């Protein structure tokens, strides 16, 4: 699917999450900013995890060698 496309999917998921947080738990400007921070942190962490694993497999230096039996 490509690196960029999936990254875009992550960004879109983050935006949707932020909107959901605003709709479900609207708690004034300070509370909303806190929820937004949480959503952004989650998106960044999850994207980083996925991106690292994806990039590591893009141009592999070793390949799977099946074991005996």
């Amino acid at each position, binding site marked *: *699917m490509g690196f960029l496309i999936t990254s875009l999917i992550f960004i879109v998921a983050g935006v949707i999450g932020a909107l959901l947080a605003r709709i479900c738990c609207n708690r004034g400007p*300070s509370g909303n*900013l806190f929820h937004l921070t949480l959503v952004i942190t989650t998106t960044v962490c999850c994207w980083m995890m996925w991106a690292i694993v994806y990039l590591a497999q893009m141009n*592999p230096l070793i390949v799977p060698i099946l074991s005996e039996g």
Partner: protein
Amino acid sequence: MEFFDNLPAMDLMRSEKMTFVQLIIPFESAHRAISYLGELGLLQFRDLNDDKSPFQRTFVNQVKRCGEMSRKLRFFKDQINKASLLPLTHPTLQPDIDLEELETQLAEHETELVEMNANGEKLRQTYNELLEFKMVLQKAGGFLVSAQSHKVTEDRELEENLYLNNDYIERASLLEQEMQPGPSNQAGLRFISGIICKSKILRFERMLFRATRGNMFFNQAPAEEYVMDPVLAEKVLSRLSELEATLDAGIRHRNTALNSIGSHLKKWTDMVRKEKAVYDTLNMLNFDVTKKCLVGEGWCPIFAKPQIQEVLQRATFDSNSQVGIIFHVMDAVESPPTYFRTNKFTHAFQEIVDAYGVARYQEANPVVYTVITYPFLFAVMFGDWGHGICLLLGALILIARERRLGSQKLGSFMELAFGGRYVILLMAVFSIYCGLIYNEFFSVPFHIFGLSAYKCRDSTCSDARTTGLIKYRDTYPFGVDPSWRGNRSELPFLNSLKMKMSILFGVAQMNLGIILSYFNARFFASSLDIRYQFVPQMIFFNSLFGYLALLILIKWCTGSQADLYHVMIYMFLSPTDDIGDNQLLWAQRPLQILLLLLAIVAVPWMLFPKPLILRKIHIERFQGRTYGLLGTSEMDLDSELGSARQRHEEFNFSEVLVHQMIHAIEFVLGAVSNTASYLRLWALSLAHSELSTVFYEKVLLLAWGFDNILIRLAGLAVFAFATAFILLMMETLSAFLHALRLHWVEFMGKFYFADGYKFRPFSFASLPEEDD
């Protein structure tokens, strides 16, 4: 940067603004005002009398009386527990009673209960004695049945007058017996009978033998039911049943009394606790000059001021006082306490951060990021979506029974688990995500996201075990390719991946920490910190470890064979040498030399300018004042610049320099060691995956290979046990601990001062419960 200024203040980012207040309360409304404030729970009183002993304080008598009352209440509770009565929980709609009334009522109940207990004791003792007598009759009747029957009536009389109780023998009637001449002596026997402890029988027998020089006959039988003589028996039995009836009536009477107490007990205990707390707080206040008012000082959050004022007005009104309570703001010398308004979700995370140290007043709170990064780092070490689902079920059960478990008293382990239920929930959700990425379901990979990217080189797969597969498609779209599981080259690949991942996460989180220190410096308006601490720290850290992260990314993107260890080490050892095969960037050699120079320059930059400039500022400020006031030589420089107070204190240059040097060295050395410390993310996730693999392959698959159903069940049971205890419990605790360490030391060490103290308002809700 103005963008950040224009944003509204974030909820938990900085502690609530506090203000120091003074209360002047007229005497008649003092008690009411304090109890209303206790219900509100937003004012922390300062103890103005802490140089006095507890016996010198004003309200010491009231405190003693409360202590007496709570002792009586504990006595009632013990009695109720001993009588094994269930505590009644029906809500009583009794009107509120006064403290003096309560005191008299409690005293009455206590005397009544004590009297009932004493009477019960006496009755029981009489009952027991009679019971023993009955047993004596039974046994002795059995022994003497063989004696001459026409002597039975006299024997019976004898028995009536004799009984023996453990070591005590009554000889009076034997002597009487001797005075009477006559046929009773025909048998030539004297006898005594009684009850004795089983353990003392041998000694008693020996003693009798010696006393009677061997002329005696001793018979014993254990006390059981026996047939006995009806006439005497009747008298004894009727007496016994009378006593039993009396005892039962007594117990019933006592139980009624206890029940009636028990229905009020909780309310009374709460009342007494609150009163004691109110008097303890009143003891912290001072009398003012006129002796008609009490003066109190304390901290309260600024948002609570209107609420407190309203409560004080209500207290004045309710106590029909002529004079209102004065409530005004004062300046304080010490720094305010730290108060975060957390809800049940963020409370557990705040506790985790507070366990390291309570935040300084209004510094950046790590909880804002910890809420997400802590479960995330846990999940990186725990990644297995099967185990994650188990954790999720556990967390959901705890949350579903929140209300019931919250009111119970739990064991210490369950209490920890229950308090952290939202933490566990987030940990479980992130574990499921990381498990999907690592592609491990109880260590079994799945092809959820499409086909694997690897296949055999040709259709015969002849060299699959020597040279391996090839990559013929695009990368597996989400996570680790399932073809890697069970290979010979699985570990080299995963190790390389996870180690680089740990370094990248470490560099990212530590950069976040340094950036938070920038925001702290900006908030406390300390440009010195920004220019001579934040900037050199960023430069040093990123020119070395940010560069390493960049090299990792470039190596992955280009698929180069460069050896990163070699590159980094020779960047330091011989930076001007030719890079050769390890070239990853264009103009890498000049870039590395530049970065090395920047790092070297950054070290004295973060070491020397700040103390020198502080010294210059101090000299300028107190120029010409040679006779300054003597003060403490210890200074907190970071807050000094931010506070508005003038301090005529000595400026100890050498101490400031040493402090700065320690800070700089800690950062420089810490940069290397903390980055390496993040490799525990790799280590623990490797351990988890290997344990999981071992249990799956060597226990479950092995047992499933047999045809026998018993072996299969046994294997399943061992697998379930091992997964539950070792993987779910031990690994959870282990990953929990290591994620905690990463947060406390590596992340919070970059910016967190943690030298504040917690806001502990006077609140009835937070009074400690009486221990059972």
